């Protein structure tokens, strides 16, 4: 599903190039649950962003479902976002001015889903994540764990083929973190490919494959 070939990312300021990712080769199949690990500054988040098409590599190729992402237009990328990818961030990033219900609704609005279908999808999601009671609350009225659940729900509501999670439990306590990881496990068992970046060994244990990054390189073992 995902094929990275010789992917490199650097930032240049003046004459100096700062490499963040070096010659990454990576293959990920549908239905995998992969964790990307490594010390801070290793380039994990950058890799995730590139995989999520939020950022562009400096050189190399990226094929998503055999489509060459590095050659696609912004419009086409938006299409892919809408239909295939769900993002979960460390700091939730819910829209503060909208209720939980409205937050969940928003991706569907961008996909131009009809009213009645929207309503049923949102209610379904609220039910599944046990958040029906909270549907009219605003993000700042929820705890961290609940906000992250809502964020995951939002990521999942479009039935994405791929979920990218950047330190999903970073701001949560142990119990909340567990809840989220269980969710991920369940989603993965239902066929969703999950790629997560994390520091936690515990979180990594939920996945079946670990990729280690060090100074921008993929290494076999730390």
């Amino acid at each position, binding site marked *: 599903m995902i094929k990275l070939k010789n992917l490199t990312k650097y930032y240049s300021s003046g004459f100096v190039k700062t490499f963040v990712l070096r010659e990454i080769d990576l293959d990920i199949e549908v239905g995998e649950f992969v964790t990307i690990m490594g010390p801070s500054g290793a380039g994990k988040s950058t890799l995730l*962003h590139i995989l*999520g098409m*939020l*950022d562009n590599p400096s050189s190399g190729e990226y094929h998503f479902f055999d489509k060459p992402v590095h050659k696609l237009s*912004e*419009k086409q990328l*938006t299409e892919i*976002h*809408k*239909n295939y990818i769900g*993002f979960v*961030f460390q*700091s939730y*990033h819910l*829209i*503060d*001015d*909208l209720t939980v219900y*409205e937050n969940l*609704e*928003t*991706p569907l*609005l*961008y*996909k131009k889903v009809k009213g009645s279908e929207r309503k049923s999808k949102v209610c379904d999601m609220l039910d599944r994540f046990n958040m029906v009671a909270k549907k009219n609350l605003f993000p700042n009225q929820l705890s961290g764990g609940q906000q992250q659940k809502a964020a995951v729900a*939002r990521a999942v509501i*479009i039935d994405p083929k791929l979920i990218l999670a950047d330190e999903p439990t970073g701001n949560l306590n142990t119990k909340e973190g567990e809840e989220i990881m269980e969710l991920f496990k369940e989603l993965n068992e239902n066929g969703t490919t999950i790629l997560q970046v994390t520091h936690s060994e515990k979180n990594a244990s939920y996945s079946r494959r670990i990729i280690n990054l060090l100074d921008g390189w993929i290494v076999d073992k730390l």
Partner: protein
Amino acid sequence: MLKNYLKIALRNLKRRKGYSFINIAGLAIGITACLLLFLWVQDELSYDRYHEKADQIYRVISQWESDSQARRFAKTSAPLGPALVSEFPEIEKAVRFGSNKFLISYKNIRFYEYIFFADHEIFDIFTLPLIKGNPKTALKEPYSIVVSEEMRDKYFGEDDPIGKIITLGEWHDFKITGVFKDMPQNSHFRFNFLGSFLDYASHHFDQWGISNYHTYILTSKNFSPDELERKLPQFVEKYRGKEVRYVYKYTYPIQALSSIHLHSNLDGEIEPNSSVGTIYIFSAIAMFILVIACLNYINLSTARYANRAKEVGLRKVIGASRFQLIKQFLGESILFSFIALPLAVALAELFLPLFNSLYGKELGISYFDNLFLLFGLIGIILIVGIVSGIFPAFYTSALQPVKALRGMLKASSIISILRRYLVVTQFTISIVFVISTIVVFSQLDYIRSRKLGFQKEHIVNIPIHDKEALQRYETIKSEFLKDSSVLTVSASNFFPGKNIWYQSYWQEGTREDENLMISWVTVDHDFLDTFQIKLVQGRNFSRDFPNDLEGGYILNESAVKEIGWNVPLGKEFRIIEKGSVIGVVEDFHFKSLRQEIKPVALCIYPKFFEYFSVRISPANISLTLDFLKNKWQELVPSQAFEYSFLDEDFGRLYKAEMRLGKIFSIVTALAIFIACLGLFGLAAFMAEQRTKEVGIRKVLGATVLNIVFMLSTEFSKWVLLANIIAWPVAYYAMNRWLQDFAYRTGIKAWVFPLAAIMAFGIALLATSFQAVKAALANPTETLRYE
């Protein structure tokens, strides 16, 4: 989708109530000011256009050359109108106007009123609808008069006035033959009584030399003013003789009716007119206020959007296309600006009565009649909404989501630069206003305090309406003098700013039929003393010289200069009676400081006296007034005692300037207020952007004072730039305005630094609050990693 956008927009509004209010209020105030000024301008431009035949009506004025200068006078002589009609087929009709104040009595109701007189053709020329009476015959009979609705109510109440007789002073009875609709306020002349002209001016019917009347003509549809101008010299020669045409270059220019109110400011106008300069000034002011308000709005809005970068990044991640984002933000922006519209209209309605009283108008907002206005307003709101939304919309929609989400987005350089220019522009405009206001008030002060060449303080003017009292004027004077606080008394027709008569005169060395013109004032022996006017040559009028009565002339320095005499004393001179020059006085300002001092002659001609001028001691003024009143009632029981103070009368000459001063100060306060609002909001935003930096600095050891100083002075360079731009602009504009005054104060140098200091002070005030707030924030809170 729309609902989603709407919800966010409104909730965002509610969440940042402070900013939103400042934002929208600032815009609304700007629109209100603009709206009111627009109404005013619209009214001024509409003067006299309600006459059906307005495009065919012209006023004829007099022009001659004197001292190689063209002199113009709004009044013409009586025979002119009929002569024009008979000579030129393209001039279809003419009407002449005269006016005077009379004591009107009907039964036992008596009031002093201004009575106008016109030829009966007036109804064919001007649109003056008669509610009662026949326009074809109303003024044809001798001693007939028509009255306005207002006068009908005043004198006759419910009764029908037609056929009733009213008495005009000591002169004659007049029969009422019609009632006309009150004249609209946007006319350059208004009257409540109109009598037949034939009776009023009969003694001047063939006097070409006495210019006492206003002449208006109705022309044919294909009339060409240029053609008339070409034919006029022959006309002048035919009716007034070769000398008048060649030597004094006498001619009769015409003015289009609708141009009179704004462009004509001659001697002899029926009522003081406005000037087109004021229209320009007010339109400019309106535009500037709107600009400031809009810039403000744009400024604050863009600040608001930078705050929402995170939301934008997120939406992009979720799948929003750039177009959808642009739509969202643009829609929000337009929505907010539409909220400002009803607020602005409400404010305008609220302030309209105040505005009307300030400018003596009766303006109203008629929403449906004034479609132009309505569309204009909507257009402005749309433009403001789009302009303020389009930039942030495009800019933020192009953001890279990652950077946006990480909050790595600083107030980007482009937005910052834009914002800086906006603040600079706002402050520039405000500073220009501040300087202008200071200059206007300086000029007013100068006017108040300038030496006029005569004393105007503590002089009481008592108008004389009873012609019989004139014959006893010396007696009245000596009776007044019986009280010790009455210092001197003089009788004359002198009144500040009053239209002094131009009269053809004769001097030694000119021929009998030459027609030179001069202003003249009729005075008495005590005039120079009462007004403390300085004699520079010769002597004052004296009772020891019986010929002085009607035969002695005193000229002012300008008159002597114009005539060109080296030794004026003893030269023969005549205005009404032949006499000689007995003295020369220093020039004095008998009119507004807007005009150069013109040549003037003084002579004693009691028949034309109109006022007693009483110089009283400054102590116990009210007692002295009581004394005067009692004496008057004793001596002149037929006339009520009226009085005014000369310095106040003079002050009224400058009504227009004082109004301008008032309006300028209001406008300046408004402009500064709006600019400050903007600066305040901006400072808040920038402080917010830099909370992290502030936190770090505090941790490193900066004191609160350091931080406040750092944040506040950020703006000082912008204010400095604003000053540099504003100074030359203000200087140029005010210079132009001051040109209108023949006598003016210069623009003092200290005005500019003063304005600069004010601007800095205000900017400091606006920003310091936010600076202090930011400086006091606890670093542990601001530096917390999200």
